[in-house]
């Protein structure tokens, strides 16, 4: 059974909201989401897990209006869908979102929420695992 995300989330993420950067273009192409970031002139092809997350967050953000989708809800949905406990879900999702934010594909409000919570973009030195472990304990 999955713990609710907010039980274990760093405080900085509890009020965070996310949405696709309005400047990007994106499409679900044959089951994989492709995101174009015109300002960076980059194209990101998300893997199936990332594609699932993008679909959910873009839909939730659309429903939520200009503010964006609540991050804790996104983490809960992700954990429930993939059968992950909240800490593991938070680590995976937060690193992914941090990467997309860094690439200009995603807007997170407050903008430094992920970093404040210790989540760095994938591939960048960060304290994500340690932070999750700490929270989990």
């Amino acid at each position, binding site marked *: 059974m999955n713990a609710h995300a907010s039980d274990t989330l760093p405080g900085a993420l509890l009020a965070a909201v996310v949405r696709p950067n309005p400047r990007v*273009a994106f*499409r679900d192409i*044959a089951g994989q989401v492709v995101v174009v970031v*015109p300002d960076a002139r*980059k*194209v990101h*092809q*998300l893997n199936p897990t990332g594609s699932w997350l993008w679909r959910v967050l873009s839909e939730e953000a659309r429903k939520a209006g200009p503010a964006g989708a609540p991050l804790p809800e996104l983490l809960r949905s992700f954990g429930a869908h993939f059968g992950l406990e909240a800490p593991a879900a938070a680590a995976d999702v937060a690193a992914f979102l941090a990467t*997309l934010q860094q690439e200009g594909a995603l807007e997170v409000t407050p903008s430094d929420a992920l970093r404040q919570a210790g989540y760095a973009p*994938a591939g960048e030195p960060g304290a994500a695992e340690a932070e999750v472990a700490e929270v989990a304990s």
Partner: protein
Amino acid sequence: MTEVLSDLRAFKLATGAHHFASATIEIADRCNEVCVHCYQIQGQKGEMDTAQVCAVIDRLADAGVLWLTLSGGEATLRRDFRDIVAHARSRHFAVRLMSNGLRIDDNLADFLAEQAIASVQISLYAMTPEVHDRTTGVPGSFEKTTAAIRRLRARNIAVDVAMTVMQHNVDDVTPLLAFTAEVGARPSISGHVFAKEDGDRQTEALNLDQDRYARFFADLQSAAEQQSEKKAPEEAPPPAPNPLHGRPCQVAKASVHVEANGEVRACALFNHTFGKVDTGKGPVEVMRESEDAALLGGLTWGHIVGCRVCDLRPHCHRCFANAQDEAGDALAPYASACARALTVYEHQTGALAWESPPGDAPTGPFREVEPGVLARTEDTLSAEDIALRERAPWLRPARNLAAPAGSPAAARAREGFVPATRLARSAGISTNQST
């Protein structure tokens, strides 16, 4: 979870997907330039209204198209241009605009930046103002167009500068490359002028002659080599061997084209209509349901009689539309492609000699006798080739097997005369028939 790719071509290669990822809509059947080389005939097709264009955009979004190019004519001439762009962006398209830049003032440039348009392709034909203005037929167009490019770049909008190289502007290639480097735009240079869309081939007279094309090609190679020195070796594009099972063109496979009046085609240049969007179907549905489109999308080098046995195939960049215009047959070799392949071959081997004199404007297929020495060779029609021609006479309008016996088209086709689509039409043969 992410993989950063450099462009959509890489995406296609990575997934191997057969997917209509890009579309072009010619939203305007009019232009504010009268370029000497333009293949289009303006003002006769008619234009879809705002609701129709937006409906097409919605259909394309639902079909999974990501890249949307808005072109014309001159797309910005439409009063609802901004509404169309905004609608496309609201459907999360990566929007590209093709324009001559004449109407891109500060206000429009601001709008395009606000809409996060993916890129703008601007046509610029020379860095010598008189040469550019003579090409466009509009005095002062050089100043306006280059100013538009600078405006867009100042707003960090990606700009592709498109130049068609012809006899009268070939000396402007190097200055234009310098200009694009200066402003941070990407050059997009074509060395081919197409026949007009009604089959009139007068514009082809503007094409580079063989000597000028060789010089132009060498200049481009030199520029490309300088550019590749700045890149890591693994980023260099692999050679294109054009295997028999490969496709000479991605037409009808990954992209779809919509004319200003809603006709659905494979590309702007290939003169065959697969259907129309006013039938309640979107462009992708039209393509997917069309047997003609499936046939065109499935054509490989192995289907092209002559080219399939030609040793210069690895050096060839043939085009179905060009072949239709020049040879009256999309499935045949044609002189300008052969001439260019010979130029590339000579450039790469450092020599070109003939076993026996090939005559003027030699057309393939060619056999490599030894490195640097070529001979003409022959190919033969198989039963499958004949069946394909009977099934799809629209591929070869001037050698149309369906041409009425005794008609001018049939007579000229027998004589080897190449009238292209205009003659076919004058003989009452539709080049846009659907199955």
